[in-house]
């Protein structure tokens, strides 16, 4: 899981590149405190259960996605450091999943369909996707570190329930906000779609890669059969042992590692693409 | 003698078009203490926010004029004006936004360009002035309402202003805290403007009152006169049984 720290650092560095005005810090901090406090307000979510707002999508739709990323990162950091809730060792992964991927997954439906007839659906799917996509990424990361699919299935059920709940809560709060003061919720500009489109494509690619990583080992395919037959799998046992010493040997003996490294390489490429996009966008903003 | 504040025919409209101020004239001389009275929404806080340029600094015709220590309130003078006028807001929690008391009181001096050591020194002196020396390292969240108010005042005093503007300073204060606040204000030499509903508090500090009504000044005069004129004093009606 320490391998995950690297992409998280990239994520944080991307935020640092967006030169935020010092004057916005109090607003973002206060809205972060709002999200914390909002956990105290319970929403009825079905038979005898209650749920609360997670916040990534709502923040993105009111403060904009970059600001929402910063706020969610601060929330995750304070939660882990001050309240010891959420685990310091996985903080990097949490930031990546929830603050970066989750926020953008929550924002993009709104960005594209927020000004159309489908606004309510866009807001709902924003909330739902922010949970779903970050959950899939989290599970993919766990899968990469060797956890069997069966154990992940349990948490998958939890996420499948909380995703639409978050969507419903997000929609409910946005509607209520508009009743108080329409200015709170952003109006997505229809033009200048290039940046957002590329991000949407990048995000979809990340999502597909993560899903691929999750399910890639359930069905043995031709390569694996070939490997078993010709004894390649025996040789595979030796090769990766050196750079990744310390991990259980059994993990690397499985043919799964070949697919996983392909998946990892794909993810890395996409992170690189997102990083490049982020730099271009920041440079454009500075010139504007 | 040049007035500290001179306001002529000040007008202001909210974004939705309602007129908040309809031609207000006002004058503050050195050493004076004035109370701004009036119902909620009568324009007194809106007026106060024009004095340090939080509102109205963009200028424009027909808006009237506000001058502080001879300087018109416009963008180029804002830094200097905010050095002369210190404003204490109603909600102390929104005013004490730094993690520790000392850092908060030092916020103003640091913005004035002092280096950290000089700013810290100014902050400590100001805290001493308001009687909160021991609180320097504490977090504002843990202070009582009265203590927060004092620290907020210290934060203003640290900038060495000539005018203090206080918006509802006695909110949330219990009687002992009110009394010590009154004593503190009494001992500060700066000219003061008090926006308040607390008549007895105003009486103990201010010599003059200005009564706002619907965005205009309805009367000025001594506090007693103004209060009587508008029935602003509180005398519960007796019921028939005479109890």
């Amino acid at each position, binding site marked *: 899981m*320490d391998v995950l720290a690297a992409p998280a650092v990239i994520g944080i560095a991307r935020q640092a590149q967006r030169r935020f005005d010092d004057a916005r810090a109090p607003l973002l*901090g206060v809205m972060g405190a709002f999200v914390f406090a909002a956990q*105290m307000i319970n929403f009825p979510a079905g038979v005898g259960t209650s749920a609360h707002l997670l916040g990534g999508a709502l923040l993105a739709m009111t403060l904009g996605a970059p600001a929402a990323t910063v706020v969610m990162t601060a929330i995750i950091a304070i939660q882990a450091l001050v309240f010891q809730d959420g685990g310091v060792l996985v903080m990097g992964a949490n930031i990546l999943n929830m603050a970066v991927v989750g926020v953008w997954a929550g924002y993009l439906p709104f960005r594209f369909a927020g000004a159309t007839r489908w606004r309510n659906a866009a807001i709902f799917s924003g909330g739902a996707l922010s949970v779903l996509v970050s959950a899939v990424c989290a599970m993919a990361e766990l899968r990469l570190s060797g956890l069997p699919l069966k154990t992940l299935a349990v948490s998958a059920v939890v996420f499948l329930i909380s995703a639409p709940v978050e969507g419903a809560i997000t929609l409910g709060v946005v509607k*209520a906000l508009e009743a108080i003061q329409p200015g709170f919720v952003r109006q997505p500009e229809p033009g200048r779609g290039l940046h957002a489109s590329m991000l949407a494509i990048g995000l979809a690619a990340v999502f597909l890669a993560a899903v691929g990583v999750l399910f890639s080992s359930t069905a043995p395919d031709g390569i694996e059969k070939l490997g078993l037959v010709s004894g390649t799998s025996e040789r595979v046992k030796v090769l990766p042992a050196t750079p990744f010493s310390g991990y259980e040997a059994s993990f690397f003996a499985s043919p799964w590692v070949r697919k996983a490294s392909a998946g990892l390489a794909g993810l890395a490429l996409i992170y690189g693409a997102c990083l490049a996009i982020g730099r271009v966008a920041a440079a454009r903003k500075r010139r504007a | 003698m040049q007035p500290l504040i001179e306001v002529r025919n000040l007008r202001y409209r909210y974004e939705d078009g309602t007129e908040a101020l309809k031609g207000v004239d006002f004058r503050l001389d050195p050493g004076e203490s004035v109370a701004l009275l009036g119902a909620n929404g009568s324009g007194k806080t809106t007026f106060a926010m024009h004095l340090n340029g*939080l509102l109205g600094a963009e200028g424009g015709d027909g808006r009237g004029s506000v001058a502080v220590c001879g300087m018109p309130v416009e963008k180029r003078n804002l830094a200097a004006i905010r050095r002369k006028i210190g404003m204490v807001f109603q909600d102390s929690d929104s*005013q004490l*936004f730094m993690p520790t008391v000392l850092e908060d009181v030092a916020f103003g001096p640091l913005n004035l360009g002092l280096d950290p050591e000089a700013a810290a020194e100014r902050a400590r002196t100001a805290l001493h002035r308001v009687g909160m020396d021991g609180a320097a390292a504490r977090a504002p969240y843990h202070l009582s309402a009265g203590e927060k108010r004092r620290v907020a005042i210290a934060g203003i005093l640290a900038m060495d202003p000539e005018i203090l503007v206080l918006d509802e300073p006695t909110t949330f204060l219990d009687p002992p805290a009110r009394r010590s606040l009154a004593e503190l204000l009494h001992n500060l030499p700066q000219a003061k403007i008090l926006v308040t509903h607390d008549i007895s508090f105003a009486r103990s500090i201010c010599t003059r009152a200005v009564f706002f009504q619907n965005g205009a000044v309805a009367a000025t005069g001594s506090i007693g006169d103004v209060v009587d004129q508008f029935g602003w004093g509180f005398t519960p009606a007796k019921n028939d049984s005479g109890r």
Partner: protein
Amino acid sequence: MHRGDPRVKVLNLLVFLVTLATAHRDLLPIAGALGGLLCCAIVWSRLPLTGALGRAAVVLPFSLAFAGVCWIAGDPTRGIHLAVKSYLSALAVLLVVSTTPLPALLGGLEAMGAPRFLLMVAQFLYRYLFVISEEAQHMAKAAQSRGATAAGMMGRSARFRAAAGALAVLFARSYGRAAEIHRAMLARGFQGHIETLAALHFRRADLALVIAGSLGPVALRLAVERFS
């Protein structure tokens, strides 16, 4: 420890966490040794030991559940490893956070390369966390006293809309508070850059702290791995 340079403490924490997180062979004896080191540090810092051990247990419900799942799936060691690592890391963080006031901690993090804007946001978040939580609590209590939790009183969708409305009000008040804070900053001469008071000083005592805190965990782990 309480007065130690926060940069040193953050560095020590990072070294500790990396040492712990990358340990796989002989995890249990290493964890024991590192845990012992932490307990010594806790006692030396005059923090209540049992209190600290209890506070760190906040992570346990989640990691023990995970461990249970791993055990069912046939890989109990992974579960135990995870539970042990998460507990010790929480304890280490608790030690640092309890001996460092938050502004100093953020200053230490900034010196280690964390982005300044993010740290400022975290600082404001922490400052207003309890203020806004209290407001939320008041709202929840007021709703409760009007029968919001009595499932029979209002239909589910009505309660949902009431909760959404409450959140929207809390949002609006928080946003309004942020505007008040901005006004207060302007009134005290804010020009665009938030200045800081504190300058960090590195003292000789900090040198000892660095050596003990950074070399200690690494030495312990190497020793256990060598002699097991």
